[in-house]
C-alpha cells in the first residue's frame, strides 16, 4: 500500500464520517457501504464488502438518539478494510481469515470513535457560542460560517478515529496475525458467520416489537426447512 492509498482511505474516512451526523446522512456511513467504498479506492471492493458484511448489523440497533453517541462502526469498517488490505499485503496473509482478524482487532478500537466524537461536539459548543455572538451583532453570515465550521470538527474526529484504528491495529496484527491466522482458518465458516449472527441477535434483542420472537422463530424454521428439503 502506497501513501496515495492511505490518503484516499483517509478521504473516505472523512466523507463517510461526516455522513454519520453532520452532512447529508444518506447512509454511506453504514459499514455495508463505507467498507466497499474503502475497498474500491484501494482496488479491492470485494474485500470491503466482506468487512462490511461482518460489521453491518453489530451496532445497527444502537440509535443515534439525542445526545447518545453509538460506537463508530463507520471508522471500524474503514479501518478494518485498510488493515485487511495493508497488513494482508505486508504479512503475505490474505483471504477471509485475514479479514476476520482485521475486523476483530478493529471492533474494540471503535470506542475511540465515541471519545473523538464527544470532543468534536464539545468544540462545536464553542462554535455555537461564537455563532450566537456573531448573530447578536447582526452578523448572520458569521453564524452561517460558524455552523459550517462544525463540519471540520466532525471530519477531523472521523479521521483521527480511522488513524488510531489503523495505527494500533497494524501493530496488534503485526505481532498476532501470523500466530492466530491458522486458528482462524481452522474455525472454517463458524467465526465468520458468528460475527453476523451476533449482530443479528443484537438487533433482534433491541427491535422492540411485540411478536418479534415468534416472527423470528417462524421465519428461521420455515427458511431452514425449505433449504433442507430442496
Amino acid at each position, binding site marked *: 500500500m502506497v501513501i496515495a492509498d492511505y490518503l484516499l482511505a483517509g478521504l473516505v474516512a472523512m466523507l463517510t464520517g461526516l455522513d454519520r451526523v453532520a*452532512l447529508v*446522512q444518506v447512509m454511506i456511513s453504514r459499514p455495508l457501504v463505507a467498507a466497499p467504498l474503502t475497498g474500491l479506492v484501494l482496488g479491492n471492493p470485494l474485500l470491503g464488502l466482506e468487512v*462490511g458484511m461482518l460489521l453491518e*448489523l453489530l451496532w445497527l440497533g444502537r440509535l443515534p438518539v439525542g445526545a447518545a453517541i453509538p460506537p463508530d462502526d463507520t471508522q471500524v469498517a474503514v479501518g478494518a478494510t485498510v488493515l485487511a488490505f495493508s497488513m494482508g499485503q505486508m504479512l503475505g496473509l490474505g483471504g477471509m481469515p485475514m479479514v476476520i482478524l482485521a475486523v476483530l482487532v478493529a471492533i*474494540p478500537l471503535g470506542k475511540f470513535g465515541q471519545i473523538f466524537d464527544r470532543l468534536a461536539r464539545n468544540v462545536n459548543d464553542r462554535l455555537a457560542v461564537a455563532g450566537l455572538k456573531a*448573530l447578536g451583532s447582526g452578523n448572520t453570515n458569521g453564524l452561517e460560517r460558524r455552523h459550517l465550521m462544525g463540519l471540520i470538527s466532525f471530519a477531523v474526529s472521523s479521521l483521527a478515529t480511522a488513524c488510531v484504528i489503523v495505527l494500533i491495529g497494524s501493530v496488534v496484527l503485526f505481532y498476532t496475525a501470523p500466530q492466530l491466522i491458522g486458528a482462524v482458518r481452522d474455525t472454517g465458516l463458524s467465526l465468520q*458467520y458468528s460475527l453476523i449472527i451476533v449482530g443479528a441477535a443484537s438487533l433482534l434483542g433491541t427491535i422492540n416489537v411485540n411478536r418479534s420472537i415468534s416472527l*423470528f422463530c417462524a421465519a428461521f424454521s420455515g*427458511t431452514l426447512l425449505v433449504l*433442507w428439503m430442496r
Partner: protein
Amino acid sequence: MKSPRLSWLTFLSVYFRSFLFQASWNFENLQNLGFFYLVLPGLRSIYGDELSTDVQQRQVTYFNTHPYFAPLIAGTILRMEERLHAGEDVAVDPDAYKKMVMAPFAAMGDALFWGGVRPLAALIGLLLASQGSLWAPVVFLILFNLPHLFFRGAGLVLGYVQELRAIETIHKCRLPDLAIRLKESTTILIGVLCAYLSFKGCEHQDISGVWGFVLLPIVLLFAWLSHKGVTSLFLVLLTTSSLLLLALLF
C-alpha cells in the same frame, strides 16, 4: 389566505441546506444553529437581510428533532413568519410551535427511519452481500434513500402549505404503525438470514441441514442477553474467543 411568497429557489435552498442541518451539532443547544441556518434563506426572502432581534432570537433557541423531520418544521415556521411579517395573526408562536413538535417528531423519525427503514434496507443489502454481490451497497442506498429524500422534500412543502394542519396530516399517515410493520419485516428477514447462514455452515461441514436448528436457541439467548443490556462488543469477544480457543485446543 395570503398567497405564498417564497420562490421555488428559496425552497430549493432550504431543501439543500437541510443536508447540512446538523453540521454544528453541540451538547449545549443541539441543533439550534442548524435550524437557524436551515430557515435563513426563507427569513431573508421575507424580511430582507436585516433580521430583527425578535426574529433572530426565536429561531436560535434550543432545538432537537429528527434531521429528516426538520424541513417539515422549517416549512411551517417560514409560513408563520410570513404571516407575522404581513401583520396577520398566528395561532401559535413560532418558537412555541417548535418546542411543541420537535420531541414527538424526533420520536417518530427515530422509530421510522433509524428503527424501521434502515434495518430493513440493511438486511436486504446483507442478504445480497452474502451472495458476494457488489450491488448490495447500491441496493441498500436506493432502498433507504428513496423514502428519505422524498420525506425531506415532501415535508418541507407540506409544512409550508398546511402549516399547523401538517401535524394532523402526519398523524393520519400513521407513521408509528408503519414503523412497527417495517420492524416486523426486519425480524422476519433476520430469521431468514440466520437460517441461511446456519444452512450454509452445515453444508460446509458436510452435515445435514437439520443441525442448523441448533443455532436457533443460541440466537435467542444472545438476543435476550442483548435485550438485558449486554453489549455487542462483549458478545463478539465471548463468541470469538470461545471459537478460537476451541480451534487452538482441538
